[in-house]
């Protein structure tokens, strides 16, 4: 019996020690494992592989839900992946742990703007300690909130405050350019285009409807211009030169950059006209092209200079088949008086 009791005590002792060892050992292993995971997530973030970093950071959070470093990085990763709904949840959690943190409130405000909730963004920014109120990033975000709200004058005030301190702030210059688009002020657009792109812009491989200058909007609606009136007429023909149709468009964007005036110098004036709006010299640019056959329909015509677009006509919508070609005639009226 005595032997049995001793044996039982010994067994219980070994069992308890094993459990303790297992618990602490596994905790230590988890910690070590998490450190490695965090390290690899950071490496992914550094190399812009956000989609790989996110699941790792999420995994770490399961065992370390209050790890501020992980929470912050995950929130930023969500923001950069256009997952602002998730970011805001993380930001709120961080704010519970670290109330009124200016960087977190700032990140949350950025997200609200991304989600189209500028009022909430402004309210969040107002919670940031007043000593940071003249910070460039905060002023820029406030400007952006006002721009989304359509309050362009207020937005301009914030951007100009930043530019007074830092005239070469690229992001603010781009925002001023976007603002000029909404203000329909192409003189302002020209000023900022030159400031950002210089006198001889170079195209990038990234193009969208606003042009081929990366994130810099390059093309602006001709209908907002005080100096130009442009129309385009497009003849669509078959391979055997038979007429399919003729379409016209006034929906044209152009670049207010001075390069456009230089390009026009290469074309002759075909006539001068006078109307209620002033005196205009008329130039015509005619080009024959074989448009790219896409999977939907031909919806645009473009006039290229170097490797980027300087005139862009849209709202066309004609289905094409292989071999069809187009003759585009741009009529450009430039105000001279």
């Amino acid at each position, binding site marked *: 019996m005595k032997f049995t009791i001793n044996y039982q005590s010994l067994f219980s002792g070994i069992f308890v020690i094993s459990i303790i060892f297992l618990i602490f050992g596994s905790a230590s292993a988890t910690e070590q494992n998490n450190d490695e995971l965090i390290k690899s997530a950071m490496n992914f973030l550094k190399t812009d592989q956000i989609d790989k970093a996110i699941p790792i950071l999420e995994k770490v959070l399961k065992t370390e839900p209050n790890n501020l470093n992980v929470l912050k990085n995950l929130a930023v990763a969500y923001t950069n992946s256009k997952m602002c709904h998730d970011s805001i949840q993380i930001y709120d959690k961080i704010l519970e742990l670290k109330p009124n943190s200016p960087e977190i409130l700032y990140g949350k405000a950025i997200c609200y703007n991304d989600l189209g909730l500028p009022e909430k963004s402004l309210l969040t920014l107002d919670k940031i300690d007043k000593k940071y109120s003249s910070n460039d990033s905060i002023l820029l975000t406030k400007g952006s909130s006002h721009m989304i709200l*359509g309050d362009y004058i207020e937005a301009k005030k914030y951007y100009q405050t930043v530019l007074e301190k830092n005239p070469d702030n690229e992001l603010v210059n781009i925002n001023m350019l976007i603002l000029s688009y909404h203000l329909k002020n192409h003189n302002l657009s020209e000023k900022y285009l030159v400031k950002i792109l210089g006198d001889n812009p170079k195209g990038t491989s990234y193009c969208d409807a606003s042009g081929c200058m990366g994130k810099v909007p390059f093309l602006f609606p001709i209908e907002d211009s005080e100096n130009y009136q442009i129309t385009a007429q497009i003849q669509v023909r078959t391979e055997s030169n038979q007429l399919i149709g*003729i379409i016209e468009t006034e929906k044209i964007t152009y670049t207010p950059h001075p390069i456009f005036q230089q390009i026009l110098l290469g074309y002759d004036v075909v006539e001068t006209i006078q109307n209620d709006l002033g005196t205009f010299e008329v130039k015509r640019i005619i080009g024959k092209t074989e448009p790219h056959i896409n999977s*939907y329909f031909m919806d645009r015509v473009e006039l290229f200079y170097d490797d980027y677009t300087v005139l862009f006509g849209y709202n066309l919508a004609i289905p094409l088949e292989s071999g069809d070609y187009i003759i585009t005639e741009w009529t450009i009226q430039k105000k001279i008086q």
Partner: protein
Amino acid sequence: MSITFQRKNILTYLISTFSLFVVGIILLSIVFPALIISNFGIHSNNLESFEVGNNSLAILLSNLLVLAFVIAYYKNKLPLQLHKLISSIPKKQLSKKITLIVIFLILLPYTILTVPELFIDEASQAPDYEIFLAAKEIFPFGKTTFTEATEQNDRYVRMILLIASLEIFQNVKIIPFIGSIALLIVTYFFTNEITKNRFAGIVSTLVLIQSYTFLKYDTFAMYENFWVLFYVLSLYLIFKKFQISSISYALSILTKAFTAIFLPLSIIFVYYSNLATKTKLFLIISYGIMFGIIITIWSIDTSVYDNILRFDLQQIITALSKTSYQIRFDLFLLALILPLSITLIIKARNGLHIATPILFLITGSIFSGAVVEMLSDHFVILPYRFVPTIVFFAVGIGVLFSNKMEHES
């Protein structure tokens, strides 16, 4: 002759004249593509107005030949046996079982052959996908400086369905494709309902499924067919469950605002239907209420639509001219649009009342696009917006096989 009958006669006359005008402009622009643009366009030019268009001869000839055939049929100038054969077609009634098998045999190869399109990346196919993604970020009520994204978000039902397709299937094309299949099925039921002939329903389904425009956009998420589906469904529901017809119409508008302009088409359709006057009144009032609700929603949500209105009457004629190029690959429609219109007019004059609203649906849906171009320079008519026209054209072909008695009045 009752006053209602006289009113209907006058209206039929007006709709017939209007339809021949619309069809005439389209055919004229096929024969002379430059004629209208050179006279009504915005661009000063040296175009040759009477340059003959590609395909003009074939399309004109086919229209005239079929038309001559139709006239010969109605004037009893066809050989007797042929006349008898044609006359007997509408009387053929298929059993439910055979109809089900035929529909299955139509849809199965269509589905199998179309499924590979679902794996094409929408982003690489349609630049508008970027706009959808931007809109999705702020859906439903977020604000943005990006007008196109705001416009997408005003189309709540479409956004919900596309987002659902993405979230459920991780593929934005699947629910739009299901919508296209549903459109084929609803087209069958609608035609069957108004003709009381399953064979007619099958014919209209076949006419729709052969359409270049339908097949081109049936899996495009950005050019989905939900709006057409809900609109055609609203017409079908007029007969089956009139109480909810206006809901389907509202869903159509909230999928694509374009169908708001189809309201006169729906009202004419209700007016010509054989429903009781009280039911017709209920339908028209319910459409009015739905319309009011949608306008209220748009104004509360500071909709983009009220910022892009204009009035340019000249656009009507140039837009109609443009239609002929936009449906240039729908040769079956182009080859038959004139004879079909005239046949529907003859059928209507012979007392088949449903022929008039169907004709109005065909030509009215074309004209609606021109009205949109007249009212806005922001929206233009794109080829996929002719899917309703093709559906109604298919139904119109089906109406030729109607089992309903002419002289039903």
